[in-house]
């Protein structure tokens, strides 16, 4: 990176460190923090959408839909989330490939499952074997996002279902008395009011989501855990210009500090948001604010 870095073996102390920390691999390591942030930015709204649909289904008047919603919200209580992270991407991948196989190669004679193999025709492969590298990486990342959204959607569905139940019944009854249809009272009365009740649960969920991001590593994404293991492992002078011992502990200490900062900052942010949302509300927090101002 710097001009004096051409021969690292002559360097020492801080200059060595400044060169070491700016190697190409380290730049990739820093970029992988962006991957984590990207995952958070995409997964949070996606999980909220899944959660909203799940909560709506769980409240539905149509019995089969209600059962699906209930099962979806209940399963995260009994089954470890890591099992879903391992299951959802591979199941989705096979499901999509099977559908494409059916559509693209209708005359394929052999069975898709042959013993221990899952065989689809070459045109049905996802992504195609001829696709460039970034498509493969993007596809893996998309599957990871879907797995996260699926699991956290179930958590969010629990929170939103509770929030919908918490809205006072009188509000809905009044809406009915004004002649609103069920659909109208849901969208105009229930949904705008439920967010105040949902926010504590959703902020908790955000913290959980932040702490689940290192699991990206399990899904084969080159995330911060991958790079910390890669860079921290001991390097000999034969393979690297910067030989060093086993530094993985220090890299993971860095990750720990990163996550502590992230959760601490989110906590600050949410308490600010809660103060702002409570302003003028007929709740305990809102009343306390009013008294403090008076």
């Amino acid at each position: 990176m710097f001009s004096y870095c051409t021969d690292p073996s002559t360097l020492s102390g801080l200059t060595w460190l400044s060169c070491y920390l700016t190697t190409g691999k380290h730049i990739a390591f820093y970029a992988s923090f962006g991957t984590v942030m990207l995952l958070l930015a995409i997964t949070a709204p996606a999980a909220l959408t899944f959660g909203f649909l799940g909560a709506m289904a769980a409240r539905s008047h149509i019995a089969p839909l209600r059962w699906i919603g209930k099962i979806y919200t209940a399963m995260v209580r009994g089954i470890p989330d890591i099992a879903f992270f391992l299951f959802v991407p591979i199941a989705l991948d096979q499901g999509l490939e099977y559908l494409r196989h059916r559509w693209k190669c209708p005359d394929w004679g052999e069975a898709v499952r042959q013993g221990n193999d899952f065989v689809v025709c070459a045109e049905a492969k996802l992504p195609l074997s001829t696709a460039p590298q970034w498509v493969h990486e993007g596809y893996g990342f998309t599957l990871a996002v879907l797995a996260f959204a699926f699991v956290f959607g179930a958590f969010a569905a629990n929170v939103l279902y509770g929030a919908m139940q918490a809205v006072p019944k009188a509000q809905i009854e009044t809406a009915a008395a004004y002649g609103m249809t069920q659909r109208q009272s849901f969208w105009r009365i229930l949904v705008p009011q439920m967010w105040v009740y949902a926010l504590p649960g959703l902020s908790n969920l955000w913290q959980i989501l932040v702490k689940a991001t290192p699991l990206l590593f399990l899904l084969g994404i080159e995330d911060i855990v991958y790079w910390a293991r890669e860079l921290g492992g001991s390097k000999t002078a034969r393979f690297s210009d910067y030989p060093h011992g086993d530094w993985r502990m220090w890299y993971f200490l860095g990750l720990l500090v990163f996550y502590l900062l992230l959760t601490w900052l989110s906590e600050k942010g949410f308490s600010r948001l809660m103060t702002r949302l409570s302003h003028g509300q007929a709740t305990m927090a809102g009343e306390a604010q009013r008294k403090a101002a008076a």
Partner: protein
Amino acid sequence: MSCTETIQDYALRSIGFGERLLPRSDFTLCEQFVLIGSGLIWNVYFGAFALIFGFFLATAVALGKASPNAALRKPAEWFIFVFRGSPLFIQFFLAYFFFIQLKALSSFFDPFTSAWLGALVVLFLNTSAYAGEIFYGALRSVPKGDLEAADAYGLSGWTKFRRVTWPTMLRLAWPSYTNEAIFLFHATTLVFFAGFPAFQQRGDALYYAQYFADKTFNPFIPYPIVAFYFILLTLSVIAVFGTINRRLNRHLVAVDRPKLRVRPNLLR
């Protein structure tokens, strides 16, 4: 090979008894059920021991955090902040590499680099922090009247704590503590994915499930089996904790007793 033979060979495979070689091909449903169930021994082991040891440290941490003495309060607050604010996955990795460094210093630390002790230490500290925060919240909401009544009866110090404060704290904390226990058992599935090696392929339930999913390229059988086992485990945890909950609340009228409600608000 019949299913009874499979059970004889693999039921205790995860703790090193029975057949050494894992099945390589033509996996039967029985083999998958037995091996994954065998792996569940590790999940129960990690969860149960971390909970039992963690219970005592959690009480100490909660008392420390509630202490007016800053020398006790600050360490307790930092302990809770560090273990609740960072992912368990990272804690596992960090601890594993830390123990490897220690191993170079003294052979006393050798067992810490294997999962049975090293991962247990991490889970123990982790659950102590989460449960400590729960107990701290409960400690703060012990009714004033109970403490005044204890004073009126002339109880003080240790006797007051043991007979009034502590049982009331446990009673109030128990529904949340049940959740913590459930999610601790779920968190044990991370052990063999986070640095700690599965010595001679002795892993936990999810480790074997992944083994089968990788070999057969069919996730639709092993993962539902894991799900089945964990639902059973969760139900047993709820049953055990429900019994304790009833005992803690046996002096209350039935309508006042808090119900156990499983809410997924704790996860690492």
